[in-house]
């Protein structure tokens, strides 16, 4: 099925977003694991001497929030931009059928 260039562009844009968000997640996640494996002492350090909260705990909390934020970001982009791709594809498919 031949798709017109503007639709192909939209699809490429969607793939670009998917790949970037996936890479962001993987880098954050494996970065965290890498740090745990190679620099555990850095993670064990307290963020300030006064409080018993380590960098590890703080970063882990931030990471949990970050993952949730990335999912929200994707849903926002999908609702506002990707759904127009779907509509465009449908219209194109219907025109082809006609």
């Amino acid at each position, binding site marked *: *099925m031949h798709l017109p260039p503007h639709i192909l562009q939209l*699809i490429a844009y969607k793939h670009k977003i*998917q790949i970037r*968000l*996936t890479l962001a*997640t*993987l880098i954050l*996640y*494996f970065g*965290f*694991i*890498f740090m*745990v*494996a*190679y620099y*555990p*002492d850095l*993670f*064990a*350090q*307290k963020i300030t001497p006064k*409080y*018993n*909260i*380590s960098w*590890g*705990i703080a970063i*882990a*909390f931030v*990471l*949990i*929030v970050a*993952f*949730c934020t*990335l*999912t*929200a970001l*994707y*849903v926002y982009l*999908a*609702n506002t931009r990707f*759904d127009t*791709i*779907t*509509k465009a*594809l*449908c*219209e194109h*498919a*219907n025109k082809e*059928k*006609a």
Partner: protein
Amino acid sequence: MKQIALCILSFQTLYGAQGAPNGLNITAIVMFTLFVGVTLLITKYAATHTKNANDFYVAGGSIGGFKNGLAIAGDYMSAASFLGISALVYSAGFDGLIYAIGFLAGWPLILFLIAERLRNLGRYTFADVTAYRLSQKPIRILSAFGSIATVLLYLIAQMVGSGKLIEVLFGLPYEAAVILVGTLMIIYVGFGGMIATTWVQIIKAVLLLGGATIMVIAVLWHLDFSLTTLFDQAVAIHPKHETILGPGGLIDDPVSALSLGVALVFGTAGLPHILMRFFTVPDAKEARKSVLYATGFIGYFYLLTFIIGFGAIVLVMDSPLYLDAKGSLIGGENMAAIHLSHAVGGDMFLGFICAVAFATILAVVSGLTLAGASAIGHDLYGYVFNNQKEEAKQMVASKIAAIALGIIAIVLGIMFEKQNIAFVVGLAFAIAASANFPVLLLSMYWRGLTTRGAVIGGSMGLVSAIALVVVGPIVWVEILHHPQPLFEYKYPALFSVSIAFIFIWLFSITDRSAQASKDRKAFDASQLQALVGEHSMPLKEKSQ
């Protein structure tokens, strides 16, 4: 001394698993009877509303994004998450967060890469998607086997865990507990299908999230709502003091860390009972919403389990009420959250949390059983042994499979009572990551994937995951008592996933068969469907 002895005696039923039920247990028994009663009523409702295969497998595709998100969270958060992670935090502090992050990290990936395409391409099982444009029979066999292997392993872990838990909490003998859980799951799935399973999971999610939230609020209330007080006191009380704030001995070396990480993040996207939940929504947009909600619930939940673990250090570790003669927790390490519920809320709250733990098990085993039954009835019976058998007959096959799986689960649960099964869930994730995920991902996105490549690579992933665990330190040395392991790492995923991808790639690009060209051409044809799905398609036809 005498007072302490009296206190310990009065908790004997809960903590000694012997003796007649007393006032302490009544709350728990009442609450779990209530839960079972409600779920059986729901199953009756579900049975009358399950008229065809579409209802049985995916609840007619009528579950909205928010409800499905709750159900997914209920399907995913097992007793191992709630009790196991809080227990890990209790004994080692920060290490629990490593697992929590691992369990959460797969969800963004599911959203970005899997959820929408899966919903657009498939109907009842993820094998629908992997086999969409490839040759049906070989791919269905591979995916169904991957599903069943994952499901059975996960079920063993759940049954043994539930037997022990119910034995400790309700005083039932182990075998009775396992039979009870197995029977209930057969009823939910065999009679109520996806509708009943979904509602059991939703109720469990609400109870679990609600109960854990109350527990955290109660813990913080005890500590004047100060997180700093929580950490200060935990560090003071715990024998390892400040070292609990950083990574402990959980991860021995970088390769194990990486391997475990790979298993958790990619395995989540290959779990059949999770993937099947994406077919219960009307379209891709609702699928995407469900992952958003599920990720939020699950992330929130892991934050709670972390605070619960630390709360247990502060309120349980020092209290002789919860420790046995040797100073370790009564009932075992996994009881940390249970004891904490008693410490902050007395007998009533303890009863409630025990019932929640029980509900948690039922929700997960129901999902697993339905996923396994779907693979057997829809994939194997419907497509492999027949050529697309009528759906009504597939449904019957699945119901029979649900009963069979329930019985097998009971038998395995009883058989493995005394075994060290901690590695089993890790192996389930490794198989999901090595056999299910690579084939699914590549079949949706890579034009070059051929049937031969998928079958060979996927099988190699499956076999290598199992083999590396069998000859690894846990099975070869600890269980089979050889002096040295043949494979030195506890977690095989880094290697088995790599093997899967490499061999899928290798045997696909070198594939010059006629089937291979069909596979590649069919990819082009499938892309429109993948992007748009059946529901958005014939706008013109709808208006006629």
